[in-house]
């Protein structure tokens, strides 16, 4: 009884969220002021990356601080294929995802000998190795990067097919593409969560020796988990590269491509499918508001915005380390509906 009403509430929340997400940019579109579309786009892309990071960090319990490497691999693969071969960005995204997964599997397998902090440090090391490669490899134009030429595709379909939106609808177009990709990621990872993989990832997180004892190859499943994370980051990287119309090392290998999604995941609820979405919806607008209010005016240039932003994150982490999604929402929902918090409190007393 309680389970089914809980599920109904969850479905209602999902429907409300989808409607809100779809409707959000429409009233703003008429004003011609697209700044808030871009904030929305950044929320969605960071939410998507957080949902991807949750697989290795939240489910498999392995702290990965270098997923931006796969963000870069995705962005570069699609950009190169587009610039040199003229391949559609969507096929480029598929290629980028496959390339990121393959490289991730090769690189991560040796790292799975390491555990805990040592694994985390090794993922940082891989990122440090990737930076000089990105900056000096001539095939990808080194530190100058790649510029993505506009194709001038016609109409909504043409723009979507070439992943290039321009003019008044640019921000709107990318917002909806990010919305769709986030939805696809959530749908696919929900399937993973309830499959054998989801069970095995969490078993390794909770007790690696115990997991091996019931026949789980911990190294293999850690590699699979990280490759899934890499796939999501690669897809995000392609989207970001086409949005920015350029791919260069300092941009796609920026540390923020791991810290923001990780913070969104931890603040929203690590290990919960929807945690990173909630975290991104809360954190990204705060960071944008901070930098446009505190980052300008008399206090500009002193980093006050970053300090306040940092304090907010520390407060959330200290007050609710398991994330905002872990608060007793269903009990509050019941109380709001005017029903007692627990059946045992009434009756037999």
């Amino acid at each position, binding site marked *: 009884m309680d389970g089914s009403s809980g599920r109904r509430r969850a479905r209602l929340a999902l429907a409300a969220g989808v409607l809100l997400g779809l409707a959000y940019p429409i009233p703003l579109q008429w004003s011609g002021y697209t700044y808030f579309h871009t904030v929305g786009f950044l929320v969605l892309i960071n939410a998507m990356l957080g949902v991807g990071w949750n697989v290795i960090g939240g489910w498999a319990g392995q702290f990965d601080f270098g997923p931006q490497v796969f963000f870069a691999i995705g962005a570069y693969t699609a950009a190169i294929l587009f610039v040199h071969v003229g391949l559609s960005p969507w096929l480029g995204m598929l290629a980028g995802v496959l390339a990121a997964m393959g490289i991730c599997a090769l690189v991560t397998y040796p790292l799975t000998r390491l555990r805990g902090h040592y694994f985390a440090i090794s993922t940082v090391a891989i990122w440090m190795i990737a930076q000089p490669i990105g900056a000096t490899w001539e095939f990808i134009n080194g530190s100058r990067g790649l510029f993505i030429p506009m194709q001038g595709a016609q109409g909504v379909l043409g723009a979507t097919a070439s992943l290039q939106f321009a003019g008044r609808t640019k921000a709107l177009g990318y917002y909806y593409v990010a919305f769709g990709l986030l939805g696809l990621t959530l749908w696919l990872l929900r399937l993973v969560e*309830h*499959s*054998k993989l989801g*069970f*095995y990832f*969490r*078993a390794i*997180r*909770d*007790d690696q*020796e*115990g*997991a*091996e*004892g*019931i*026949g*789980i*190859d*911990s190294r293999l499943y850690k590699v699979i988990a990280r490759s899934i994370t890499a796939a999501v980051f690669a897809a995000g990287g392609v989207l970001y590269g086409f949005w920015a119309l350029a791919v260069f090392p300092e941009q796609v290998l920026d540390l923020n491509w791991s810290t923001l999604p990780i913070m969104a995941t931890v603040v929203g609820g690590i*290990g919960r499918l929807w945690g990173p979405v909630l975290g991104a919806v809360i954190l990204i607008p705060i960071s944008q508001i901070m930098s446009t209010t505190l980052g300008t005016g008399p206090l500009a240039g002193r980093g006050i915005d970053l300090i306040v932003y940092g304090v907010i994150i520390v407060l959330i982490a200290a007050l609710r380390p398991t994330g905002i999604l872990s608060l007793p929402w269903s009990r509050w929902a019941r109380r709001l509906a005017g029903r007692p918090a627990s059946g045992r409190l009434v009756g037999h007393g």
Partner: protein
Amino acid sequence: MPPLLELSAVTKRFGGLVANKDVSLAIGAGEIVGLIGPNGAGKTTLFNCLTGYLHPDAGRIVFAGADVTHARPERVCGLGIARTWQLVRTFGRMTVLENVVCGALKRHSRVGAARQRAWHLLEFTGLAPKADVLAANLTLADKKRLEIARALATEPRLLLLDEAMSGLTPAEMAAAVELVRRIHAELGLALCVVEHVMEVVMPLSQRVVVLDYGEVIAEGPPAEIARNEQVIKAYLGEHYRGR
């Protein structure tokens, strides 16, 4: 017919310390063997060698015709050896049912089938009423019971129990002994039981192996072991004589 499990002259060293020295023993299909000995005698090291967590420096381990001397834990499990742990290793942030589903996924790759199999085992072990409880919130006795259910879910032919009774109250211990007897009688598994509580291991075992300083110092039916002078001196103590 060869025995289910056969160890020949297994030796395991940690630096200068010899944890297992020339251990040879066999366990037949459907047999219950008790493994006893003082603290530090090498019982857990032997379990770790048997299940692939450690690999012997010398000797050979053969299970059901396959050489598992250097096999990894997941392969040993696949061949049909399952174990429990002296310090429990349940998956604390997963429910009781999910813990057992993880075990059942070894033989059923579809979650639905694994869930069905897991329910059977929760009913068999009496954990069904607690199916939705997080494993971290169970009592020690239930955690140990859950480890047994999870191990059974991998459909082993040999189950190794590492102190499944230690730390339990007398009533919980009696219930655990009852469960072990049912696993033997109804599922027909071979069992190897490491235990410090003689009142449990002696009546339960068909055969007892005694380890001391890494070596097998005695082996035989429980009644015989209880009278063995060397075993009394090394482990049982004078108070056990003549019971």
